[in-house]
């Protein structure tokens, strides 16, 4: 569970659990993932995928978008489109990929590509359950574009016992980077 400085659960937080001593290889055939676009926003805003995942970028918005990234982990451009016209993009290197739309500057999305086999994002309330972890020690790391705490404080080792269970509560010490609730901008607004 991830809770903010105010004690309330924080959603949209990426959680990865890497077996201690393991390499950064993920499962051989990761399941495809989807980063949608609706109401001038990426949906979800934060997506975590395993290295090698094919991500589809359908545009289910009423307007066209031009998705791009110039992040070191994945550089790509999807020319102007609506619907499902572009083939999936393969995210073959671990790291953070920041997405933008060349037409709508306010659209920002994040794909966190991880070499860890166990990962997910917290739901409303800050909870996340990772299943199927064999007993052992794991390096658990959390990340969110809205967390202001230093990255070094967002990682710790957790031991999973022989019953296959462990729990972790991560409390943030700094306030979240504030974001307003999504604002419905009319399409005939210029910016």
């Amino acid at each position, binding site marked *: 569970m991830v809770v903010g400085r105010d004690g309330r659960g924080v959603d949209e937080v990426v959680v990865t659990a890497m077996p201690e001593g393991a390499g950064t290889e993920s499962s051989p055939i990761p399941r495809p993932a989807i980063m949608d676009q609706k109401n001038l926003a990426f949906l979800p805003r934060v997506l975590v995928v395993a290295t090698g995942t094919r991500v589809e970028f359908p545009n289910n918005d009423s307007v066209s978008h*031009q998705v791009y990234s*110039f992040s070191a982990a994945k*550089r790509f451009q999807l020319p*102007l489109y609506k619907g499902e016209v572009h083939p999936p993009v393969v995210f073959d290197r671990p790291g953070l990929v920041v997405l933008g739309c060349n037409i709508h500057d306010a659209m920002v999305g994040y794909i966190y590509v991880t070499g860890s086999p166990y990962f997910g994002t917290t739901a409303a309330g800050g909870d996340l359950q990772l299943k199927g972890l064999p007993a052992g020690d794991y390096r658990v790391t959390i990340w969110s574009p809205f967390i202001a705490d230093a990255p070094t404080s967002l990682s710790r080792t957790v031991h999973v016992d022989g019953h296959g269970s462990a729990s972790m509560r991560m409390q943030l010490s700094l306030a979240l980077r504030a974001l307003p*609730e999504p604002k419905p901008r009319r399409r005939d607004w210029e*910016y």
Partner: protein
Amino acid sequence: MRWMNRTLLWSAVLWASAAGAQDRVSMNGSVDLRLVHATGDPSYLNGGLGALRFDPEHDGVRFGRAFLAPKWRLTDVVTVRAVIDAYGDHDRNPVDLSEFYLDVRPFPTSSIRWHARIGAFFMPVSLENRGIGWTDVYSITPSAVNTWLGEEFRTIGAEVEARWLGASSGYLGDVALVAAAYGWNDPAGALIAQRGFALTDRPSTLFGSLGKPPTRFYYEIDRKPGYYYGLSWRHHDRLEIRALRYDNHGDLGAATEAGGNAWRTRFSSLGARLEPSAYWTFIAQYLDGDTTEAADSPGEDQFHLGFHAAFALASLNWARERLTARYDDFHTHQLSGIYDLPNDDSGHSWTFAWLHECGDHWQFVAEWLRVASRFPPRLELGEPAQQVETQFQLAARYRFELAW
């Protein structure tokens, strides 16, 4: 303006050839009808020196505006954009262009994103005219500051913006520097000198005129380009700050064969828009500058006018409703030049608006506006220098979007 005519022709040809491309051509449009009740001085649009768009002789059922805003994506990064306007107020051109430009937005390959506009367009200065074609999205009538900027200014030239995209560096915001060079803006300043500030939703068009006698705005006199540069900063998608310095670099010795002098107009604008939640918006903007005409050295033969204006706005948006309140304060002060009655304009105004969205297409707006101002040249028209003008408007707007 010969280059504009030529560009217009080529665009029409290319436009027709591109109509078959999927989702490359789109068109926004709007028709706006009003029911108006106005009190006070005859509007400057009708030959008076009133500060509002309508007056007691010109109210009742009125045509607010109709516009078409076609957009044609030539390539993924190059778009041709135009705004074609009709205001139904006996302008010399019943239908005219307000904007027409090439918009170039290369895909960013680093955290600096370049953006260029070439043609004729509004400068990036207003924080309330967020709609297509300088439409105020918080009320019908923009502030005195942005009314004037819509009346006398259009960038006819080229603008380049470099925007640092903070998201890639973990910062939720961005910072942009913008600069432009332009021509055909030498008459800028004449209207504020002759009339003072006003509050109307009647910006000028590129080839049209405003008022009686008609004033035209966009022609070249001194063959010298003007410039502006500015900064905008967007923080956490909650705060946007815009600063702009404008100087049309008018040559005071230059004049047309008909005797029209170039004006030298300079101003600085600083504005901020805060959106602390999905419901509230707060905007404040301050403008300060001066304009000069006639003799090219200070003295009695040189008309020199200083001006400053500011407004503060609060707007509450929920479901389909928006309520807006705005206070404007504006002043002009004649610093030199011989006039029996100094062109000193001083006033303030209150604006209250209620906007109701009805589905995707219809919007209904009620707006009440009260301006109290003192402008001595009104005495020459047999009107008191001090005036209180009010204007109540009900607007029904139908808006649409087409794409091919």
